[in-house]
Structures are given as structure tokens and as C-alpha cells.
């Protein structure tokens, strides 16, 4: 009797040990989302255990890279498509041969999945404007609808953004403007918006965080930050401007993982009807890649497949990738590190416009040109040598020196321009 019980116990231990597989998921997503997926998945597959390893995108990449093959985490799950490109070029991703399961190939002109099959789109994200309604009311500000609205002098000191070098999502936002408006006009717009900014936050999360608690009036954010705050009851609003791009947030299977099959099972779950429905939770508020999932969405939920969000920009990811580091670095040199001077120039220009009341002034025009023109024009950014310098490996000392020199040029030119612009605007008659 006793021995039978014991045998059963041993069998139970052995079998549970054999069946229980741990799926390690490296992700940059917030706890609400990962918690929901972990719970739902473990309920459906009681034999598996999901371990969430929460890391920022770049930290997650380093983590996967530094683990020896055979004991790597199973699943990599973050927003930025470029992170997947880098991992797949380092042979750290496995091909996924999962059925499409009703998920279309493209959203607008942008492919949902990796054409080579190394990663899948799991949710969609668009970029837009998040505003705190109470803040706008208290400061008597109209609600902005388009990027260009943010150039309006009334918004001076009320806007916030992050820097493309600190967050992939912010990079996509500005790259979208640059592609939608063209390089030169795009930078003019970005500089005028940045001149109205109260802060360029260190982290991308700093923007939605600041808007939802009322530190800033308006923020440039990725949609789920705005929607999740709104749907959690915060007095905030979120709009997609007409110049926006819808791009997928992705999920991929890591090569050299311990339990690949289980990892694949998890990925398949996230793409299933059930898994996609979880995205609609008010605290998560992301856009499913599965069109049929929107049937269960609450009224007014944005649907990129329904034609409600007009993504005018056909986002070109090759172009984005080619100049990725140039855009990030240029933004930091002329905006992030020179925000004080840019703000002063913008303020002086606003004041001059008000003072002159629409009267034409060559000094004011000159000031605007100086303050709101990027030191790098459309022709220069297409220069292959420049792009190569910014893409060079860390060990390449000549490239590093050249890069430092170029950055220093941008920085000092921007500073001189802003100071001169402020002087001109103040003197404008």
C-alpha cells in the first residue's frame, strides 16, 4: 500500500518534471500586459510555466546575446522592429513556421510580419498626441489635432517629448514626420515643436507619465500609452494626427533556447483569437494584429483595419534604418543638449510675432530661418560616407573621431544659430 503510494508520488514528480516546461520571455512591456498573458497562458497550458524577464529593449538584446546557446531565454517580445533586425542578423532568432491564422500580411503598406519569417507582428502601434484635458482647460489651450498644431505659440512650455536616442518609439515618431513631410520641412516642424517643449525626457515613459499626472499638457507618445491612461480613467485624450504610421510590435523565438517548442506554443497563443483579445484590456489598450479581434472591442476603439486611422505615411523601414543613428544623434546635438537656447530663441520669435502683429520683418524671417533649420540638409543626409561614419563599429577609431567632429559641428552651429536668432527676433522691428 505504502509502496504503491510512493510509486505514484514518484511517478507524479517525474512526470511533472518532464512535462513542466519553463518559457522565459524577455520583454520591455509593462507589468499589466505581461501579467495578463502569463495568467491566461498558464491557465490554458497548466503544464508550462511562464517566467517574465522585464528588461529595456537594448538590455534585453544584451541579455539574450550574453547567454550561452542552449540555455537562452525562449521568447523575445518588444516593440522596436530594429531590435529584431539586429538579433536576426546576429543569428539569434529562429524561423517561425506558424500559420497566419487570419492575420493579414500588411497593414497599409507596412508588412506585419518579417518577410524572412524570423519574427511576427503581435500588436500594432501608431503615434500621436496625448493631452491632459484638465491641464488644457486650466491653461485655456485648444486640443491639438496635428503635429503642426504644436508649433502654435500658445503651446510654448506645455509640450513634452523624449529623444530618439533614448527610445525606439520616439525615434519612429520623428522618422514618421521626416518621411511624411520630407527631410527639410520635417526638421523645420520638429524644431518648432521642440522649441515649444518644456522638457525632453530621459525615458520615453517620462512623457505619458508626465501628461497623465498633469506635469505636461501635451506629449508625443505611442498610442497605447495614451489609450491605456485614458481607459484607466485619467483625464487624458489621445488623437492620431494624419501624418502617422502604423507599425507592428513584434515577437520572436530565440535561437539556442532551452525549450523552443514551448516558446513557440507561447508565441502561437499570443497570436491566437484568445491572445489577441487580451490586448483590448483597458489597462493594456493595444491594437490587435488580428482584424477579427476588433469585433469584441468597446465602441470607439481605434481600428487600423477599419479605415478610421488614416496612415498617410508609407513608412519606409529601409530608409529609417539607413539613417537611424544620424537622426538620433542630430536630434540630441541640436535639440536635447541645446534645449535651453532653442527655447529662448523660440520665445523671442513668438514675442516678436506678437509685438509686430503680422507686420513683415526681414529680421524676424532671418531669425526663424536660423532657429528652425537643421544644420544637415536633405542632400547631406543622403551622403553615403556620412551614413557609414555613424554606422561604423565601436573599435573603428577614425570613424569615432570623425563622428565626434561632425557632432561637435552640429552642436556648436545650432547653439550659435539659436543665440543669433534670439538676438535678431528681439531686435526685430
Amino acid at each position, binding site marked *: 500500500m505504502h509502496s504503491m503510494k510512493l510509486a505514484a508520488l514518484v511517478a507524479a514528480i517525474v512526470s511533472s518534471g518532464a512535462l513542466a516546461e519553463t518559457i*522565459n520571455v524577455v520583454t520591455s512591456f*509593462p*507589468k*499589466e500586459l*505581461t*501579467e495578463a498573458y502569463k495568467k491566461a497562458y498558464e491557465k490554458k497550458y497548466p503544464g508550462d510555466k511562464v*517566467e*517574465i*524577464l*522585464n*528588461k*529595456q529593449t*537594448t*538590455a534585453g*538584446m*544584451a*541579455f539574450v*546575446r*550574453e*547567454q*550561452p546557446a*542552449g*540555455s537562452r531565454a525562449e521568447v523575445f517580445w518588444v516593440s522596436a522592429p530594429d531590435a529584431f533586425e539586429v538579433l536576426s542578423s546576429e543569428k539569434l532568432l529562429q524561423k517561425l513556421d506558424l500559420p497566419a491564422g487570419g492575420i493579414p500580411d500588411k497593414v497599409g503598406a507596412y508588412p506585419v510580419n518579417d518577410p524572412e519569417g524570423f519574427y511576427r507582428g503581435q500588436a500594432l502601434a501608431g503615434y500621436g498626441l496625448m493631452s*491632459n484635458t*484638465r*491641464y488644457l482647460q*486650466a491653461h485655456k489651450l485648444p486640443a491639438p489635432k496635428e503635429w503642426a498644431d504644436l508649433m502654435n505659440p500658445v503651446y510654448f512650455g506645455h509640450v513634452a517629448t523624449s529623444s530618439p536616442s*533614448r527610445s525606439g518609439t520616439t525615434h519612429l515618431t520623428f522618422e514618421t514626420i521626416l518621411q511624411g513631410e520630407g527631410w527639410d520641412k520635417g526638421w523645420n516642424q520638429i524644431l518648432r515643436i521642440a522649441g515649444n517643449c*518644456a*522638457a525632453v*525626457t*530621459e*525615458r520615453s*515613459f*517620462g512623457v*505619458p*507619465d*508626465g501628461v*497623465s*499626472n*498633469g*506635469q*505636461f499638457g501635451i506629449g508625443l507618445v505611442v498610442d497605447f*500609452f495614451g489609450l*491605456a*491612461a485614458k481607459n*484607466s*480613467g*485619467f*483625464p*487624458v485624450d489621445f488623437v492620431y494626427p494624419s501624418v502617422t504610421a502604423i507599425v507592428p510590435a513584434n515577437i520572436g523565438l530565440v535561437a539556442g533556447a532551452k525549450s523552443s517548442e514551448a516558446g513557440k506554443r507561447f508565441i502561437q497563443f499570443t497570436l491566437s483569437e484568445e491572445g489577441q483579445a487580451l490586448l483590448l484590456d483597458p*489597462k493594456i489598450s493595444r491594437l490587435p494584429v488580428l482584424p477579427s479581434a476588433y469585433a469584441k472591442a468597446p465602441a470607439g476603439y481605434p481600428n487600423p483595419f477599419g479605415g478610421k486611422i488614416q496612415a498617410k505615411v508609407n513608412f519606409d523601414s529601409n530608409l529609417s534604418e539607413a539613417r537611424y543613428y544620424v537622426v538620433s544623434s542630430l536630434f540630441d546635438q541640436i535639440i536635447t*543638449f541645446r534645449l535651453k537656447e532653442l527655447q529662448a530663441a523660440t520665445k523671442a520669435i513668438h514675442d516678436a510675432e506678437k509685438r509686430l502683429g503680422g507686420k513683415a520683418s526681414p529680421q524676424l524671417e532671418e531669425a526663424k530661418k536660423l532657429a528652425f533649420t537643421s544644420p544637415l540638409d536633405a542632400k547631406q543626409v543622403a551622403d553615403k560616407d556620412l551614413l557609414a561614419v555613424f554606422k561604423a563599429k565601436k573599435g573603428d577609431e577614425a570613424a569615432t573621431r570623425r563622428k*565626434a567632429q561632425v557632432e561637435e559641428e552640429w552642436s556648436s552651429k545650432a547653439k550659435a544659430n539659436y543665440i543669433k536668432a534670439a538676438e535678431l527676433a528681439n531686435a526685430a522691428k
Partner: protein
Amino acid sequence: MILALALGIAAFLAAFLVIPVASVVYTAFTNEAGAFTLGHFGSFLHISLMRESFANSLYVALMSVLFSSLIAIPLAYFTVRFRFRGAAIIQTLGVLPLVMPPFVGAVAMQLLFGRSGSVNLLLQQHFGFTIPFMDGLNGVIFVETLHYFPFILLNLVVSLQNIDASLEEAAQNLGASGFRLFRRIVLPLAAPGYVAGASLVFVKVFDDLGTPLVLGATNMLAPQAYLRITSVGIEDPIGYVISVIMIGFSIAALALSAAILRGRDYATLQRGASTHRRSLSTWQGVAVTAWIVFILALVLSPHLGILLLSISRIWSFSVVPEGYTLAHYATVFENSSGMIGNTLLYCGIAALLDVILGVAIAYLMLRTRLPGRRFLDLSASIALAIPGVVLAIGYLRTFKGVTIPFTDVALTSTWILLVVAYAIRRLPYALRSCIAALQQLHISLEEAAENLGATRARTVRRIVLPLMAGGILAGFVASFITAAVELSATIVLSTSASQAPMSYGIYLYMQSIAGRGPGAALGVIAVAIVAIGTYASHKLLPVVRPELEGRA
């Protein structure tokens, strides 16, 4: 037996303190071929972000010392030299901030003092202006100051009490009074205590990782070290250069304080001479009380803010939250009760390790003549000067690729290193407590036991340990509560969410808008645990030294 014990302790300290720290220093000074180089320091200086981070860290640490002094010096002077009824409040002031880890309070401070925080909204409504308390580095300075000023307060009170009152009376007889008396007599005599406290504040702020990260100020040294090592990779030399700079500043500041404290008695002719407390005039009394109430309100603001945040439905652009709920606590208990359990488990084991090591080292030091025994004490004390993030980086480097025997589980992916890191960093506190307890125990009791035929082991078990119990318990509690809210090493060494302790959970929750409420709720629970522990340790130890409560 004694020798084996000593060697065991030495091996533990070598493996988990000396070698990891040495590997960090070694990596900072060697190139890929293993030859000595200063090149990494050169690269560090060439990166403008690094220069900026270095300047920012220095600026924040110095400003925190300045503001801490502005709060602490008047408070200390009032308590020791004047007769008034607020003295008990000041005692409380010395402890209250310490139970609230700065990274927990930081988010709530944003809601109270931020651009559209309660205070600025009221200022804007009534006076039409706002004050940028929390903008950028200001926020870090503000939060750190409110947390760390007690270090200066407590040290200063002790050194003021040790000043011979007759010196002051002599000065008064000669006609000095008021500010002149303070500047010419009190200040120079109290300086050593002040420097000791100020250097502690400097070190703690300079090394803090959690507060800048939560406030989003990543352009400082500790966050940069963390970001470089986790994002660029464990091989990135810049991360090690930052680590070495941080160790250097810590050691320098603590050495300065130790050197000055050693000479502290020089001014004191008669220690403990009865201090004559002067009375305050009515308006002086009002001014002093107003100052104390003001400071008390400031000190309580993170506590109040985090409590409000944990029970608020929505708090946005309003002076106080609208709508209250206990749902966040339900969320925490439903989803994160494992984290509370992890904290109790990890900190319990770490504190236990600490008192075992503490008792053993204390015994070896005070009861044996083992050669080199002072080295154990010295190396254990070095842990005080090693920032948590640096120790953690050292672990990642030293134990990279090491697996747990008989399995293929990597040591760095388990919580074992987390426990060891807690134990090492808290060892100095437990050790001080154990040494103090053993010093108070007269050796004649042990001699009597041995004369009656007890073996050494039996004497320790039946005589020494029971009589040291109070000190051991105090050491245990001090280690436990400081480890419970440590974030610097935790954030580097935590891998999976299910193995993470509360402090990491609070940090994770604070990374999303919907998570702020549950994060605050978890914070309140952590603060409650620390508060209970602190109260217990005050009951166990009549005089709690400020360094017993240090945490980073």
C-alpha cells in the same frame, strides 16, 4: 576549529567581496590583451555624456549635503542648546525619513511638488507663480535631501552634546552671544560630527541608483554604470570605469570622516558636563516651532504622498486625488504576494548569514589571538564603501558562466547572488552590533564556565550566545530592514519577475501608468515592514547609531 572558522569566513569574504570588487578594478585598468592601460579612463573623459554625468553626480551629491545641512544644523542646535517643548519631535524627525526609501517616495513627490503637483497648483491659484522643485536634477536633490538629512542631524546632536558647556558659558561671560557664539565656539567644536554626517550623506547620494532611475534622471554616474553594463554589455569597459570612480569617491569620503572622527575628542575637556539649556524668548520660540513644523511637513510629505497614491483612483492635475479605493492593495496581493514572500525569504537568509558571520568575526577578534584577525574586520567593513551597483556588476563579471553544481542552471540567473549581495552589504551593520554586544560581556563569565569544565564550544553555546542575544537580534533587524528596501544591487541582479523581491516590484510597477497605484501600495507595505523593524531595533538598542540605519 578556530582556524577553520577563520579560514571559512575569509574564503566567503574573498569570494563574494574581495574578488568581485578586484575584478571590477582590474577590468577598468586593463585592455583586451590583459595589459595595464589608462585608455578606458581616457575614453570616459571623451564621451560628453560621461563628463556631464560625472558633473551631475557631483553636483547632486554636494547640493544634497548643502540642503541637508540647512535643515539639520538649526534642528540639532535647537534641541541641544535650548529649552523648549519640541525636542521630542526632533527625535522623531531623525528617524521618520529613514523608514521611507527615497525611490519609493520619489513618484509621490512628483505628484506633490512637480510642475503641476499639489503645491504648485496651489501656488499658481493663489500667487500666480510656481517653483521648479522637481525639474530634472532638482527632483533628485530634493528627494535625497529629505531622506538623508538625519545622518547629519544625528551625528551633530551627538557631537554637540559632547561639547563642554563651560566653554560656551565662558564665551558668553566674555560678551559673545547669538550668531557670534554659534560661529566662533559651537561651530568649530561640532565640526567633526558634522563632517562625519555630511560625508555619509555625500556617499549615499553619490552611489544611489534607484532615485535617479525612478525620477528619470539617467545622466548621472550610477544610472550610467547600470545602463552601460545592462545595455551595452558586461564587457563594456566604461561601466567599470564608472564603478572605480564611485568606489574612489566612497572610500575617500568615508576615510575623511573616519580620520576626523578619530580626532573628535580633542576639544572636549570634560565630556558629558551638564549642559545648560538656554530659554527662548517668545518670538524666538514661535520662529523655532514654525521651522520645526515646516520641516516636519516636508519630511512627512513622501509618506503622505505614497499613502494617498496607494489609495487613490485617479490623481491628475489636482491638489488631492479624487476617489479612493483599496483595489490597488487587492492587485498587489493577487499578483505580487510572491514578491513580499521573496523579500522576507531573501532578507531573512541574508540577515541570518550576517549575524552568524558577525558573531564569528566578533568572537575571533575579541576572544582569540589569531594572527591577521583584524583583516576580517577590515575587509568586512570595506563593504560599506562599495556601492550596491558596483558589487552587483562585480558579481555578474566574476560569476559569468558559473553554473550551480550538478545542474546547468547559471548562478547569475538565481536569487542566490541577490541574497549574498544583501548579506555582504549589510555585514558591517550586523558586525558592529555583535562587536558591541560581545564587548559588554565580561570575559570572567566565560573563564568561570571553562573552569567548571565546559569546552570552548559549549561555553559559546551556553554562555556567550545567550548573553549576546540582544545585540545579535538588533544586528539581524538592522540587516533585514535595510536589505528589504535596497534597490541598487537588486535591480542589476534580478532576472525573472517571479524571483524578484518587493523593491524590484515597486520599480517595475512604477514603469506604467496603470501600475502606479499598485506600485505605491507595495511601497506602503515595504515601508510598514521597515517601520516595524526600525521600531523593534530601537527597543532592542537604546542608542541606535546613525550608521546602523544607513541604506542605499
